């Protein structure tokens, strides 16, 4: 049970491990380790084969696994539990190769003092990168233990096998793992050719294990950073400007300082906060401060009613995402379409929170950040201290779905804690602060043009997208709200267009379909008047919505069934498989449906190199009030070998419902000066009455195949399938996200 560690930290890994009564080991985290969603750069020692997963960045086995003299096993991951169930599935992976039960694995997650630097927990990469690293490291450790046992027991390695925490040999000979350890015995680099267990022999991978975190979450246990109450903790609230760039022109703090329970009023430039003994005292003081603060605001936001115009006129650079074959090809028919997506929120149910304490020059921050190392770097810069003087410990928060306010709340707590040495300071944002200040998923504009030949095959495909960067994570201190507001006013990091295989705004901009001639361009918008960053799926949500909407229009133009039309353009067998499974389980047919009902289908391979996912659904459109109700959904997904089947289903169902919410309801509203969506009434999301009657998720398992990211794979296809079901039901297409009631009525001429 990884409940938040409420004890004050022992800052070194050496100390942590020694404190646990273990042998002291050396341990190194390479400084150049990967940060964020950037493909690993080619390493200097190019002669060596690339190690699997995150071992490429952190090769030493003892960075990942530790076995104590008493036989206890500790596994370290730089990735964080965000509600995906990875605290459970990573244990399953380690337990598999170490031949123990998952419950025997003590798992330490993202902590700058203890774990490898695996950058951000983002992009559906925990199992793919950390899981792969832990898998290979565990297998190699098992082989090292067998070699040690061979010496100790005097038996050949071929006669030995690992079982239940021991190495067993002939005639009952046996040595427990703890008996085989010696100082630094795992301080060796991972090998690239470690042999893994064969799928037929699994006892943990792919087997049903209940998630380790759920019992505490349903019984009121310590589960979240919000639940931390270290001794002497005080409560802080921040007071934000009314708009991003507003300047504080007048503030009298005298009355606030005299309010009951108030311990400190913090002002640093335009950064305002109050600290009180009791939480509600801090809330009341925050309100008084907000009333006392006078700000100067400037209109700096684009016209919400014409975002495409803003994006088109703000292009700073155009990048080629792909250019394959000829610029154009002769054909029978050419279609064109334009699509848009509004700014959309992460909308975490629990506002961002953090606890920080300055003690003996060390600032410790308990945070639900997705990246403890990058957050530490930005916070250290903000505080003007070396990185070693900040420790970030991941502690779960409410689900984040990307870069929400977590890093900013951590910075707030760290900055406030500087004023109250020795006191743990807990910051929790109010609802309006989360809604108004989180970095949104960027608005997008896309244009597609394609040509069909006489046989109804696509011969030419042009696709252009306009978007900000979808990644403004820390970064420098200027990526943090507190860093921008404080008197030093760190500037935001300049946005750069990066076109990589992982994708950003261009994620999934290249159609996965077989098309001989393709041109795909990103018209990059560096100017970010609305604060934006990574929201689950990045550009894939709008790109797949656009591509899958357009594929249906092409299928109609080719007089083809949408499922058959997709298969016509796909040789990839695993793509075909998920499409066939989804269509079959759904009962895809051309049979007419009652008036107002329609079927929709969509497919994508996430990032074009992660999970394959196909989805079919049925929708009912109420012409009079403009509502779209999704009645049932069938999805098929292939993410390689399934480590934790139920978590894949849970994540995929969640992706479908979240994308349904984005697609049907969600748009951040603003005028030229202020964001106008401070709460759930001005930014409505999915409620139970709109939840489908059924959602089926079929996992196409491929035991032994590499792990592929899955948690974000449903976002784009769900939007595409809803769009296509609406088209099928009404004969009309909506090109703009979200599909609000007003938009539905306007398109239907009601």
């Amino acid at each position, binding site marked *: 049970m990884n409940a938040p560690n409420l004890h004050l930290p022992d800052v070194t890994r050496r100390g942590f491990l020694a404190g646990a009564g273990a042998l002291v080991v050396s341990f190194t985290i390479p400084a150049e380790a990967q940060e964020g969603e950037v493909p690993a750069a080619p390493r200097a020692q190019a002669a060596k084969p690339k190690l699997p997963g995150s071992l490429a960045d952190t090769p030493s086995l003892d960075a990942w696994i530790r076995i104590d003299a008493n036989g206890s096993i500790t596994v370290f991951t730089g990735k964080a539990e965000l*509600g*995906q*169930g990875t605290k459970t599935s990573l244990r399953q992976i380690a337990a598999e190769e170490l031949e123990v039960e998952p419950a025997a694995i003590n798992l330490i997650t993202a902590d700058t003092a203890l774990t490898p630097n695996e950058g951000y927990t983002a992009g559906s990469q925990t199992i793919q990168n950390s899981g792969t690293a832990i898998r290979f490291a565990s297998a190699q450790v098992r082989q090292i233990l067998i070699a040690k046992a061979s010496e100790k027991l005097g038996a050949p390695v071929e006669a030995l096998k690992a079982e239940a925490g021991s190495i067993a040999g002939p005639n009952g000979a046996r040595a427990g793992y703890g008996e085989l350890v010696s100082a630094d015995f795992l301080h060796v680099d991972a090998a690239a050719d470690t042999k893994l267990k064969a799928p037929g022999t699994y006892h943990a991978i792919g087997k049903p294990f*209940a*998630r380790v*975190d*759920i*019992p*505490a*979450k*349903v*019984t*009121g*246990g*310590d*589960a*979240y950073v*919000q*639940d931390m*109450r270290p001794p002497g903790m005080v*409560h802080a609230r921040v007071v934000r400007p009314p708009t991003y760039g507003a300047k504080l022109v007048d503030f009298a703090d005298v009355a606030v300082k005299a309010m*009951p329970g108030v311990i400190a009023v913090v002002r640093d430039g335009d950064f305002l906060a109050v600290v009180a003994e*009791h*939480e*509600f005292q801090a809330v009341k003081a925050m309100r008084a401060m907000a009333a006392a603060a006078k700000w100067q605001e400037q209109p700096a936001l684009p016209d919400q009613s014409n975002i495409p115009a803003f994006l088109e006129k703000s292009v700073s650079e155009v990048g080629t995402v792909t250019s394959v074959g000829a610029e154009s090809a002769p054909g029978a028919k050419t279609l064109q379409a334009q699509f848009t997506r509004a700014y959309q929120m992460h*909308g*975490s*149910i*629990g*506002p961002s929170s953090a606890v920080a304490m300055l003690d003996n020059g060390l600032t410790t921050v308990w945070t639900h950040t997705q990246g403890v190392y990058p957050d530490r770097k930005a916070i250290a810069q903000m505080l003007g201290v070396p990185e070693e003087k900040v420790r970030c410990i991941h502690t*779960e*928060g*409410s*689900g984040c*779905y990307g870069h929400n306010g977590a890093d900013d709340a951590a910075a707030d707590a760290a900055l406030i804690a500087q004023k109250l040495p020795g006191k743990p300071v807990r910051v*929790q944002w*109010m*609802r309006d602060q989360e809604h108004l200040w989180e970095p949104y998923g960027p608005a997008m504009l896309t244009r597609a043009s394609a040509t069909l030949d006489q046989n109804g095959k696509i011969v030419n495909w042009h696709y252009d997208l306009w978007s900000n960067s979808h990644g403004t994570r820390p970064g420098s201190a200027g990526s943090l709200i507190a860093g921008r507001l404080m008197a030093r006013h760190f500037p935001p990091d300049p946005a750069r267009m990066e076109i990589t295989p992982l994708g950003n705004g261009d994620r999934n901009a290249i159609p996965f379909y077989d098309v001989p001639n393709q041109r795909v361009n990103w018209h990059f918008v560096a100017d970010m008047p609305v604060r934006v960053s990574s929201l689950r799926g990045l550009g894939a949500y709008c790109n797949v919505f656009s591509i899958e909407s357009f594929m249906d229009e092409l299928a109609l133009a080719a007089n083809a069934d949408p499922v058959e039309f997709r298969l016509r353009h796909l040789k990839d067998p695993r793509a075909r498989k998920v499409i066939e499974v989804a269509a079959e389980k759904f009962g895809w047919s051309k049979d007419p449906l009652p008036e107002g009902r329609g079927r929709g289908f969509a497919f994508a391979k996430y990032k074009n190199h992660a999970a394959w996912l196909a989805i079919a659904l049925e929708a009912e459109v109420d012409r009079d009030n403009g509502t779209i109700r999704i009645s049932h959904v069938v999805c098929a997904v292939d993410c390689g070998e399934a480590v934790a089947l*139920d978590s894949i289903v*849970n994540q995929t*169902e*969640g*992706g*479908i*419902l*979240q994308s*349904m*919410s984005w697609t049907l309801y969600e748009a951040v509203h603003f005028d030229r000066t202020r964001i106008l969506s401070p*709460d*759930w*009434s001005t930014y409505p*999301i*999915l*409620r*139970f*009455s709109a*939840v*489908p009657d*059924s*959602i089926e998720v079929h996992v196409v398992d491929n035991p032994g195949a590499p792990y592929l990211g899955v948690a974000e794979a449903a976002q784009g296809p769900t939007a595409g399938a809803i769009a296509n079901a609406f088209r099928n039901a009404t004969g009309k297409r909506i090109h703009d996200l979200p599909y609000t009631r007003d938009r539905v009525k306007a398109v239907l001429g009601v």
Partner: protein
Amino acid sequence: MVKLNVNGASHDVDIDPATPLLYVLRNDLKLNGAKFGCGLGQCGACTVMVDGKAVFSCLTPVMLVEGRQVKTVEGLGTIDEPGPMQQAFIEQQAAQCGYCIGGMMMRAQALLEAKPEAGDADIRQALEPNLCRCGTHMRILRAVARARDLMKSKSAGMAPAAATRRAS
């Protein structure tokens, strides 16, 4: 001083009586179950039961619950002996991040205590005030239906014993 009865235990809390119940539960009584979500009664993460009814503890001044029975997730069972509602959520693995789940369970508990035979449509309708952002809705609905069945079989199992006691 405010007198409170929470999960069957009495507490005297020295607090501003206008303080929302949520802060008292979380900070003074150190109960984690009710969560701060919006402070506006729009999301339901703070839902607790007061005299059997589901209420938003973020909007309820603590003075209004004096002399009434407050129940939180901690009152439904423990990690070692989970109650039927908790058991059902564990069985169905009905959580992703889990932040909304405590509020969901309390609203569902209030429904099932008032209406033990609640149908699937009743459950859906009752949960309308509560938001989940991870998209765990299907499992939450299944878990509440499962809790209803567990409670029914439990009360059915209890009935003869109760009858015996009354008979003696």
